[in-house]
């Protein structure tokens, strides 16, 4: 599939920009300081296309497309923010807030959470849908980490980091639809996992307070992700 990449020009939000033909709309937008909200995307991991926060309009395409998985094409005209798109994004965020328990004031990631940041940035003021709030377990069996499924948005970043970068594939998603959940091995406690290398990558890629380090109190959990792109580059070179 790998073709030689060519330079292509396109228009994003009225601005003429250029990029390589194997780059996504999101990558080119980033390079040009155009903000597109994302949640499941993380540089250094494979593209997922699940959260739908990054949807944009492309002239001539019948449907909205996710910027993170759509490659650029010569002459493309992209609109990253219109009232319609904005409202859809707000609704999607609202849906996420109803799905699990996201009471920020009690969360160790308060202030460092991507979900919270997005809500602030996009101006989500109220959630119109009823809350579902199932009671999910908290797994504190690991020496250093905690998994609180009540805060998980099922973005799949931890699964991808564990499989693609660490190579352990300790985490995966079980079930499907609204009942799906992140698991460790055969839905075992994290502490007794024989495959987990305790590298902590999943914790640091997790956008919310679902995976955190032990010993942090409210609003103390900051995450480090800078290692990812480098790690990926180094592994590819090997």
């Amino acid at each position, binding site marked *: 599939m790998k073709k030689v990449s060519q330079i292509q020009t396109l228009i994003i939000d009225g601005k003429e920009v250029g990029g390589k033909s194997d780059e996504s709309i999101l990558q080119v937008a980033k390079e040009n300081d155009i903000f597109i909200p994302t949640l499941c995307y993380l540089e250094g991991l494979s593209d997922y296309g699940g959260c739908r926060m990054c949807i944009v309009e492309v002239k001539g395409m019948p449907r909205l497309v996710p910027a993170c998985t759509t490659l650029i094409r010569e002459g493309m005209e992209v609109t990253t923010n219109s009232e319609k798109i904005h409202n859809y994004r707000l609704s999607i965020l609202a849906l996420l807030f109803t799905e699990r328990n996201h009471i920020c004031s009690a969360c160790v990631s308060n202030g460092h959470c991507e979900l919270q940041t997005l809500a602030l940035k996009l101006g989500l003021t109220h959630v119109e849908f009823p809350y579902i709030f199932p009671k999910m377990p908290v797994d504190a069996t690991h020496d250093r980490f905690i998994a609180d499924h009540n805060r998980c948005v099922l973005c799949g970043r931890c699964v991808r980091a564990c*499989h693609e970068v660490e190579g*352990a*594939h*300790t*985490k*995966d*998603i*079980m*079930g*499907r639809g609204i009942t799906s959940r992140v*698991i*460790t*091995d*055969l*839905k075992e406690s994290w502490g007794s996992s024989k*495959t987990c290398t305790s590298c902590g990558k999943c914790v640091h890629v997790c956008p919310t307070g679902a995976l955190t380090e032990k010993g942090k109190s409210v609003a103390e959990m900051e995450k480090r992700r800078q290692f990812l792109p480098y790690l990926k580059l180094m592994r590819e070179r090997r």
Partner: protein
Amino acid sequence: MSKEIKQTSLKEDRRLRMVDRTMRIYGNEPHALIETLHAVQESYGFIDTDLMQYVAEKLGVPLSKVYGVATFYHFFTLKPQGEHTCVVCTGTACYISGAKAIMDDFAKKYDLLPGETTKDNKLSLLTARCLGACGLAPAIVFDGVVAGKQTPETVSNTIERWFKNEL
């Protein structure tokens, strides 16, 4: 029972040979996972954790992936089934022709919801998304045999006869 003993008794199990054979047909490749889980369910009636571990090792598939796959597909069950099983079709045709009344009856008479087994382990209730027997709606599979045009009465007749060991 320690894990090790269970593992060895597992090895001697004749049912395991069928599972092994399935994996061998596919060259013990990771993509044989779903076919293998079918084989496990067919020979054991359900898929338990030890077998998932066994399959994961043999095919070289991560444990969490095996669990993820086994729980994604609703055809697979991780719980042992009762002596008899009833699969109620809940496809559209069956639904509008009375499958709902049959399900309600199960809840009322046997205190059973889909996916559950009675306490005495006699009867399991399952549902299927369309058996393709819409011409005979509502359709039910009694221990593997499809029966069409069912009503709550015909269903409880069959079940009562099971309970009295007449069938």
